[in-house]
């Protein structure tokens, strides 16, 4: 029974790895490729490590596999965020079918500055509505 479960975990983990690799080859864009590879590889590593832990059934192996799983779960989103941000700043071209790019109006590629669109629009509306309030703030 436990062998069956273990074989299933092994095959499922390898299958998700294969899906991640297929996605990284087939998808059209850096961001979509990251979306395939990060999630698929994290789930694949998790399933494979669960299979390893089921095979040995010792506390030491449990600790190590849980450590690997936690580490992958912690670092994969951080790495994906860092490389996605760097890729956007470098100026990779997005896929032609991209519907929405919310970073474009808030990022100045010349000065390499991001500004929070939310704060700006809120302040703009506030200034448009009441100048008195703004001047009062300035006095404070």
């Amino acid at each position, binding site marked *: 029974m436990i*062998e069956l479960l*273990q*074989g299933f975990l*092994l*095959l499922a*983990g*390898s*299958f998700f*790895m*294969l899906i*991640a*690799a*297929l996605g*990284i*080859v087939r998808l059209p864009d*850096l961001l979509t*490729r*990251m979306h395939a*590879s990060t999630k698929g*590889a*994290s789930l*694949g*590593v998790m399933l*494979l*490590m669960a*299979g*390893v832990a089921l*095979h*040995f059934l*010792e506390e*030491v*192996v449990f600790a*190590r*596999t849980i*450590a*690997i799983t936690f*580490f*992958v779960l912690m*670092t*994969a989103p*951080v*790495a994906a965020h*860092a*490389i*996605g*941000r*760097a*890729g956007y*700043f*470098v100026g*990779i071209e997005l896929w032609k079918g991209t519907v929405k790019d919310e970073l474009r109006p808030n990022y100045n590629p010349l000065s390499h500055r991001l500004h929070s669109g939310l704060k700006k629009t809120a302040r703009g509306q506030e200034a448009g509505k009441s100048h008195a309030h703004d001047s009062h703030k300035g006095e404070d």
Partner: protein
Amino acid sequence: MQILIHLSFAILALSMVLCLARLVMGPSLPDRVVALELLSMIIVGIIGVHTLQSDETSFLDVAIVVALMSFLATVGFARFLERGGRRDD
């Protein structure tokens, strides 16, 4: 069980080949970095399966180190891409 281990080795090797294809033909550096990260994840998986095959639990430490190295390499490449040009700070 042995045949399942071999099958999962084969699937992982196939995904490594696909990942290597993206690594070679990736149009820009960030694509290649993403392919490298996926490659090291697949290597972690392969080390796990090899641990099963050889009944030697100390290979799991190697998997931990490979995962750590891949994270550091990715973050380093991201820093390099983002601030690779003229430093002005």
